[in-house]
């Protein structure tokens, strides 16, 4: 009976892992990069240097908004935090018209409130959004697809734990050069060593969109979603303008007062409603780095006197639990040390998914009736593996390269950067289709290594912030980014080398066709 359970779990593990494994690989890779989305954005906007003071920046933003949108319904101001140097503002126009483009009601400002001139890019934010919204498809479909994939992942992890016979005895086991056994080792070790992370990240990932996947709880208890929102988060009343102008309270004291209310925690963003009117209100929301669970902790001030008038309602147990889970997933609370640990754990998860995908083919190759002519399903998996495990990282490298190489005044530049990611991915897929798999593997892994290695080089030639310069200037963000690119290049180069050597060693495996061994 026990063997029966283990076998059925192995079957479940194999197929839940495989079916959406390619999507999971891309989700893991982009999710991992999203821990450094602000830093990636800063790397992709090399024109912006230094740091900025949050209070001075917020006041600069007010001057900009008073010029640009004095009659707006509301302004949103995100002053720079510990990881950024610019202020993001957007506003809801007063005439009630929806803007044709996002760019018409938003701006990126420097500390003095001037619009910064930087290359058009979506930066790390795109990778973050791809993690759950994908691209070139309606967001809602993407989120359902991502949810199914995450559910499969959870099932694969749990069934994998049951399948894995010797979690503790094999804890440190990683033997290279032993074919299938090595792949199994790699898959087990990456899975087991970061198991708390994998379980946490998969489960909390599902929680982030749980209301979308399971709307019935709310539907059964509230007539409208808005009623639920009010019951849980409190009501935000819209007050009409009185029409009597009044100057806006200075934001500096308001921000200090809010920060003191949170025991010195930083301000995340400010919302000003009816600016320039006697009915003006300022809502200040705490930065998510303030605590693990963060969900709109807010203090409201009178917009003319600057006196506090209220704060967001206390969270119930369910909401507090949810916000801690989401906080754990996104890691916004983590300072740099913990952020690196998150990043490395995510990298391990990406390797786990990748090695699992490869293991599927490695296990079956020796059992094929004729290994030189595998059946369609086997070939499909093998090609998709190459296309994803080499292709997607190649796409990410291309995204960074495009950021440096596309002409600065190109129309729709940000979209072209994104397109270059997917075009590169597609190109690798096509290459995998037309080449024999045994050759496509080292070729494409080698290509990824070259692309990642090219990123710091191209950066050095196209900006004044190359690795030697940033080392001298102590610009650790740029130094780290370039070093991570080089480390990734080294990792993929090692992979390409191994994939080449495997073919050299091929004659030793008896079941291989001589013809395949000859290609070595």
């Amino acid at each position, binding site marked *: 009976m026990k063997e029966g359970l283990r076998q059925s779990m192995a079957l479940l593990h194999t197929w839940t892992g495989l079916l959406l494994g390619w999507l999971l690989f891309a989700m893991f890779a982009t999710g991992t990069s999203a821990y450094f989305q602000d830093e990636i954005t800063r790397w992709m906007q090399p024109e912006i240097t230094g740091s900025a003071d949050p209070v001075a920046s917020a006041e600069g933003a007010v001057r900009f908004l008073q010029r640009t949108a004095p009659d707006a319904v509301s302004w949103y101001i995100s002053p720079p935090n510990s990881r950024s140097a610019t202020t993001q503002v957007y506003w809801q126009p007063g005439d009630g018209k929806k803007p044709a483009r996002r760019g018409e009601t938003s701006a990126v400002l420097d500390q003095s409130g001037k619009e910064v001139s930087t290359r058009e890019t979506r930066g790390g934010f795109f990778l973050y959004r791809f993690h759950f919204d994908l691209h070139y498809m309606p967001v809602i479909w993407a989120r359902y697809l991502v949810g199914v994939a995450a559910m499969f992942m959870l099932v694969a992890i749990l069934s994998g734990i049951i399948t894995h016979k010797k979690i503790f005895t094999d*804890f*440190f086991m990683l033997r290279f050069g032993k074919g299938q056994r090595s792949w199994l080792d790699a898959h087990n070790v990456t899975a087991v060593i970061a198991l*708390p992370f994998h379980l946490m990240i998969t489960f909390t990932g599902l929680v982030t969109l749980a209301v979308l996947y399971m709307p019935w709880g709310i539907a059964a208890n509230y007539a409208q979603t808005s009623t639920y929102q009010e019951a849980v988060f409190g009501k935000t009343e819209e007050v009409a303008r009185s029409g009597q102008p009044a100057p806006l309270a200075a934001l500096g004291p308001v921000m200090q007062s809010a920060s003191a209310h949170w025991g010195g925690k930083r301000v995340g963003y400010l919302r000003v409603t009816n600016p320039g009117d006697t009915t003006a209100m300022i809502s200040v929301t705490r930065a998510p780095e303030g605590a693990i669970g963060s969900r709109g902790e807010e203090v409201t001030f009178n917009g003319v006197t600057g006196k506090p008038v209220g704060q967001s309602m206390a969270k119930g147990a369910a909401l507090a639990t949810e916000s801690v889970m989401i906080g754990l997933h996104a890691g916004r609370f983590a300072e740099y040390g*913990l952020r690196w640990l998150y990043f490395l754990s995510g990298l391990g998860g990406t390797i786990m998914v990748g090695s699992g995908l490869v293991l599927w083919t490695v296990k079956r190759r020796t059992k094929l009736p004729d290994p030189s002519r595998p059946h369609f399903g086997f070939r499909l998996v093998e090609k998709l593996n190459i296309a994803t495990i080499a292709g997607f990282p190649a796409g990410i490298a291309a995204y960074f390269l495009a950021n440096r190489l596309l002409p600065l005044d190109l129309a729709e530049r940000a979209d072209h950067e994104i397109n270059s990611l997917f075009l590169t991915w597609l190109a690798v897929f096509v290459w995998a289709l037309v080449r024999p798999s045994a050759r496509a593997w080292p070729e494409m892994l080698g290509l990824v290594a070259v692309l990642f290695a090219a990123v710091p080089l191209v950066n050095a030639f196209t900006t004044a912030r190359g690795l030697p310069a940033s080392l001298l200037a102590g610009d650790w963000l740029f130094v780290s980014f370039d070093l991570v690119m080089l480390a990734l290049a080294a990792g993929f180069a090692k992979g390409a080398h191994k994939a080449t050597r495997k073919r050299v060693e091929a004659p030793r495996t008896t079941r291989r066709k001589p013809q395949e061994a000859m290609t070595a």
Partner: protein
Amino acid sequence: MTHLFCTLLAIAAFAALALSMKRHQRDLAGRTLTARETSLARAGGWSLIAVILAVDVAVFGFGYALVAWAGQLTMGAWFNVAWLCWKTAPSRKGR
């Protein structure tokens, strides 16, 4: 800095735990350990893991400490896997 310190402790902790396992003793220590040494290594490893948690809680507070602890232990275990992998590599044995 705490992360670095705790990760170093985690490396030591998992090295001790690996030493307490028969299959890794020859690779790590060059010989098989006595029963006493083995249980000492096991107890030492687990105690270190507890010490790391205590340090994290003292520095970061409970919630943050649990997350940091999981991350540091993961890195500590990884380091030992890599080290064992390098020590037992066929290229180092054969040639």
